[in-house]
C-alpha cells in the first residue's frame, strides 16, 4: 500500500511536471491547440476509464454525454444568454440525471449486450442532436460563445491550455483517490466477480450506477469546455465513431490505469495530426498502429510498458 501511494504521488508529480513543461517546448499555438484537445479528451477518458477500466463495464455511447455537455453549454449560452459557468453546471446536472436514470436498467446487461445498449443510447442522442435543427443547428452544427469566468475570458491558446491542464490534473487526482478508496476496491471487485462482490456486501447495482454517473460527468465537463474552446460544435462529436474513439483511447493507454487514459488520449489525438500529411496512407497507418499495439501490448501501453520496465 505504501509503495502504491508513492507511485500515485510520483505519477501525479510527473503529470504536473509534463503539463508545466509542455507549453514551453511546444513551438506554436497549433501544438498548444493539439495539447488542449488531447487534454479535453484525456479528461473524458479518465472518467470513461473509471467505468471501463476499473468497473469493467463497457460503454460504446459515451460521446453522447460529451455531446450533451457541449450542446447544453452551447444552447444555454448562445440561445438563452446564460453565463457559461452556469450552463456548464446545468449540463453536469442534466447529464448526471440522464446517466442516473438509464444506469440501473442498462447496467444489468453484461458484455456485448451492454455494449449494444450503450451504443444504442449514444446513437439516439446523436440522432436527436442532428434532427432538432431549430435547437442545435442540425448536422452543420452551431456556434458557441466564448467561455467567461468571473468576467474574464481566456484570450488565447495559452490561457486555455492553463485551464485544461489544471482541470486535467484535478481529474486525474480525483480518479486516483477514488481508485484506492473502498468504493474503488468495490468497483474492481465487481469487475472481477459480481456475485463475490455482492456477497462481500457491495451493492453492485448502486456502485455501477455511481461510476456510470461519475464517468458521464467527466465527459460532460470535457464536452462543455470543448464547445467553448472550439467555438463551434457539430453532432458528430456525440456520434458512434467518437464513442469508439474514446474507448480506443482508454484501451490503448491501458485499462484500469488513470495515466494510461491520459496517454491513450494524447496519442490518439496526436496520431492523426502526425499522419495528416500522409494523405491516403493515413487511415492505413492508424489502423495498423492500433492493431500492432493491441497485439503486442494487449494490456495497453502504460501497464505493459510499466511491466517491462519493472522486469528489468
Amino acid at each position, binding site marked *: 500500500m505504501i509503495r502504491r501511494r508513492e507511485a500515485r504521488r510520483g505519477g501525479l508529480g510527473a503529470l504536473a511536471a509534463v503539463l508545466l513543461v509542455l507549453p514551453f517546448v511546444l513551438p506554436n499555438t497549433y501544438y498548444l491547440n493539439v495539447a488542449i484537445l488531447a487534454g479535453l479528451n484525456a479528461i473524458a477518458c479518465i472518467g470513461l476509464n473509471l467505468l*471501463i477500466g476499473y468497473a469493467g463495464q*463497457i460503454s460504446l455511447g459515451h460521446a453522447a454525454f460529451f455531446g450533451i455537455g457541449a450542446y447544453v453549454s452551447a444552447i444555454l449560452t448562445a440561445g438563452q444568454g446564460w453565463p457559461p459557468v452556469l450552463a456548464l453546471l446545468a449540463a453536469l446536472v442534466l447529464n448526471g440525471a440522464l446517466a442516473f436514470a438509464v444506469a440501473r*436498467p*442498462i447496467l*444489468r*446487461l*453484461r*458484455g*456485448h*449486450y451492454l*455494449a*449494444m*445498449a450503450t*451504443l*444504442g*443510447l449514444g*446513437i*439516439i442522442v446523436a*440522432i*436527436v442532436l442532428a*434532427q432538432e435543427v431549430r435547437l442545435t443547428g442540425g448536422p452543420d452544427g452551431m456556434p458557441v460563445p466564448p467561455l467567461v469566468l468571473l468576467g474574464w475570458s481566456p484570450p488565447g491558446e495559452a490561457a486555455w491550455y492553463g485551464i485544461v491542464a489544471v482541470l486535467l490534473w484535478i481529474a486525474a487526482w480525483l480518479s486516483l483517490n477514488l481508485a484506492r478508496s473502498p468504493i474503488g476496491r468495490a468497483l474492481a471487485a465487481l469487475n472481477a466477480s459480481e*456475485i463475490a462482490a455482492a456477497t462481500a456486501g457491495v451493492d453492485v447495482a448502486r456502485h455501477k450506477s455511481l461510476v456510470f454517473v461519475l464517468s458521464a460527468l467527466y465527459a460532460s465537463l470535457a464536452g462543455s469546455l470543448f464547445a467553448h474552446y472550439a467555438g463551434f460544435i457539430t453532432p458528430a462529436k456525440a456520434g*458512434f*465513431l467518437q464513442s*469508439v474513439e474514446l*474507448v*480506443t483511447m482508454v*484501451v*490503448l493507454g491501458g*485499462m484500469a490505469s488513470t495515466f494510461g487514459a491520459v496517454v491513450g488520449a494524447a496519442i490518439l489525438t496526436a496520431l492523426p495530426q502526425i499522419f495528416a500529411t500522409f494523405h*491516403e*496512407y*493515413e*487511415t*492505413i*497507418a*492508424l*489502423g*495498423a*498502429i*492500433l*492493431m500492432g499495439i*493491441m*497485439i503486442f501490448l*494487449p*494490456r*495497453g501501453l502504460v501497464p505493459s510498458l510499466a511491466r517491462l520496465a519493472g522486469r528489468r
Partner: protein
Amino acid sequence: MLETFLQFLFSGITAGAIYALVALGFTLIYNASHVINFAQGEFVMIGGMATVFLADAGWPIWAAAPLAVLLAVAVGVALERLAIAPAREASTVSLIVITIGASILLRGLAQLVWDRNFHTLAPFSGEEPIRVLGASILPQSLWVLGGSLLAVLALGWFFGRTLLGKAVIATAHNRLAAELMGIETRHVMTLCFALSALLGALGGVLITPITLTSYDAGVMLGLKGFSAAILGGMGSATGAVVGGLLLGVVEAMGAGFLSSAYKDAIAFVLILVVLVAVPRGLMGARGAERV
C-alpha cells in the same frame, strides 16, 4: 391502406434480409471465439467492391463474384492468423479494439487500392419490380432473402450435422476441453473467420445491386448487423435472421407510420426495450450463472 402497409413490409424485409446476412457473420465468429468482429462490415464491403472492380475490368459476374469472395476469405484468414491468434490471451475489449483497428486498416486499403466513389452492380434478374396487391419489391431483394435463408440452413446443417461444426461448438463452450478431446482449436478459429468472411462477402455481392457499395459501406452495415445479431441473441443463427428482419421491419414501419427522421432512433429504442426485458436477446442462450 393494405397496399401502404405491404409496401412498408416489403421495404422492411429488403433491409432486414441485408442486416440478417451481416448478422450471421457476427454470429459465426462469436460462436467460435466470443469475439465481436467489428471488421465484419468490411468483409461485406470487400465482396461488393472487388466484384465491381473485377466486373469493370471485363470479368463476367460468375467469375468476378467467386474471386471477390475468395479475396475476402483470404483477408479473413489473414486477420485471424496475424491479429487475433497472436492476441489470444488479450481481454475481450482489447480484441474488440484489434478488430476496430482492422476495420480502419481495411477501409484505408480499399480506398487506396480502389477508390472513394460509390459503385453498383447490375441486378441478377432484372430491375422489373414484382407487384403484389399494389406494393412492389425488387427481384434482387428476393435474392438477398434467399441468400439469408440458405445461409441459415447451411449453418444449421454445419453446426448440427457435421463433425467439424460440432468441433466449433465444442471449442466455443470450452476451449481447453475441446483441445483435450483432440480438436485443433487453432484451425477451428481460422475456419470460422474464413466462413464468416465468405458469408459477409457473399452478402456484399448480393446486396450491391440494391444498396450500392463504396470503401466505407461497411461501417453502417456492420453497425446494423451487430444490432440485429444482439437483438436476436448473440450466437444464435436463427436469432440473427429474426433480429435482422425485425430490425428492418421496425425501421420501415417506424419511417412509414411514425417519423422517417427518427426511424433509426425508434429501432434503437426497441432494441433497448427488448434488452431490458430479455437481457440476452430474443433467442439468446438462457440459464443462470453457476457459482
